[in-house]
């Protein structure tokens, strides 16, 4: 049985029911890594927020999201809160806004732990330090006692990763987790993500507009466009032989290193012309 089964998920907003996600269905097995690619406004993040139950109240959700056999759509907030950070967790793009600037990082990581365990004893700090060490922070003690602004972008993103992983969740949703980072830091964080996901056996839903990054982390990928899935398949097949013209365009634009310098870069419109797009 698959860990996550999404069926006909549709999300619309406001009184006019503007559709952001349109009958999306996909499955994710235990420990599997699925990438979602697409441009902004394609519905990637709304899909992720729907899974996390973090959509605003103006959102209208229909369809089904089953996580380990349990239906999440329509679940009361209290039950969702029990799952978030425990069974499923999320790593956001911008660590500076995802962390509380007034609170030491160690306490923020400990908070996630204490919310979901009965353990009130003194072992929380030890576990936090251990987790910070496992996400590759060499100086875990010092990092735990630092405020977010005292850390670098890469260190902050690792702290978020530690928060997302400390309760050994079944599913980690990463929304553009390395977009705000430098290339060398990004390479390090991706390698680390790969290692800790393997070590924890967690499944991952990885949202990114960077095809190269997705190809390094994921085994399978969904391509979203205007709220729908236009193509899905294993990374190896989809990136080497994309079928949908939009996917072909995305793959072509991502292969900038194959274009001789000075020549015109291929654009998505070359493959998939759209009305009014520029």
């Amino acid at each position, binding site marked *: 049985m698959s860990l996550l089964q999404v069926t006909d998920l549709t999300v619309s907003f406001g009184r006019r029911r503007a559709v952001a996600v349109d009958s999306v269905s996909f499955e994710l097995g235990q420990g599997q890594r699925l990438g979602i690619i697409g441009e902004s406004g394609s519905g990637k993040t709304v899909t992720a927020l729907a899974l996390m139950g973090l959509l605003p109240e103006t959102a209208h959700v229909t369809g089904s999201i089953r996580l380990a056999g349990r239906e999440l759509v329509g679940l009361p907030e209290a039950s969702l809160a029990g799952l978030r950070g425990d069974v499923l967790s999320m790593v956001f793009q911008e660590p500076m806004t995802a962390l509380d600037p007034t609170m030491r990082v160690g306490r923020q990581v400990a908070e996630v732990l204490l919310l979901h365990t009965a353990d009130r004893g003194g072992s929380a700090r030890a576990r936090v330090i251990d987790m910070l060490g496992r996400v590759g922070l060499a100086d875990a003690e010092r990092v735990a006692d630092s405020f977010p602004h005292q850390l670098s972008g890469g260190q902050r993103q690792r702290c978020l990763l530690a928060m997302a992983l400390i309760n050994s969740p079944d599913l980690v949703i990463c929304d553009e987790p390395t977009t705000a980072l430098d290339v060398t830091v990004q*390479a390090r964080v991706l390698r680390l993500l790969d290692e800790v996901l393997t070590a924890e056996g967690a499944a991952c839903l990885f949202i990114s507009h960077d095809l*190269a990054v997705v190809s390094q982390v994921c*085994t399978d990928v969904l391509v979203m466009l205007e709220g729908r899935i236009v193509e899905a398949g*294993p990374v190896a097949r989809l990136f080497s032989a994309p079928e949908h013209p939009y996917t072909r365009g995305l793959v072509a634009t991502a292969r*900038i*290193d194959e274009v001789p310098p000075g020549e015109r*870069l291929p654009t998505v419109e070359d493959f998939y012309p759209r009305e009014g797009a520029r």
Partner: protein
Amino acid sequence: MSGDAVYEVTDLLRTFGRGGHVRALDGVSLQVERGQRLGIVGESGSGKSTLIRLMAALDRPSSGSVRFEGREIAGLHERDLGFLRASVQLVFQDPRSSLNPRMTVGSIVTEPLRSRRVRRSLDDVDRGQRLREVLDAVDLPPDAAGRYPHEFSGGQRQRIAIARALAPDPEVLIADEPVSALDVSVRAQVLNLLADLVEARGLTLIFVSHDLAVVRHLCDSVVVMRAGRIEEQGSTEQVFNHPRADYTTSLLAAIPRIRVADVGDGS
């Protein structure tokens, strides 16, 4: 000293903090020739933005010299910088914050023409004519002039910022991460546009980016910066194919590439 240097930067130092203990730029020297397309790469904190801020005279160096077309601009008073303001224009990373949301596109684009400092050389320019011309150059419809930035997509807003930079007919275009905030699907279009404009107008381009693949595509020479110093500089061909500095090698190795053959090996 070679013939046609637009910029000569010598031993530039810029420190911040109490007692100047943070050296954002530490002894940077470089030259930009007319028509050159120079890429400045490096990670955040490497000093690349500080460097171009000094080259655009948006900030003053702690010591060292910046000469633009033979004239020293470091430490010059704003009222004496008119010549630089008309000749050097900038395009910033995020068009959502670099365009005033309460101004129409038309007044944003013509603002450099109305500036009192820049105006002297541009008094006789027909602003309406110029507006139509630059909007056309960046592939925006003429009716864009009466609309506001929020009515445009990210890629279009960056075109507006580029149109504004072109309005005073500059010689040098400094672009600071101009496509980093844009969606993948429009990045290539904006890069193609920049390449075409630089070519057609014979602009000197200074292109700051952390994206080495983009720099390789667009620029003919590269400066690699790290911790306020230049690690390596040379032609794009040399720096990318035969990097001399270990740091450049590690930067190049970190460029994410599409991996399809060895997926899932976790290495």
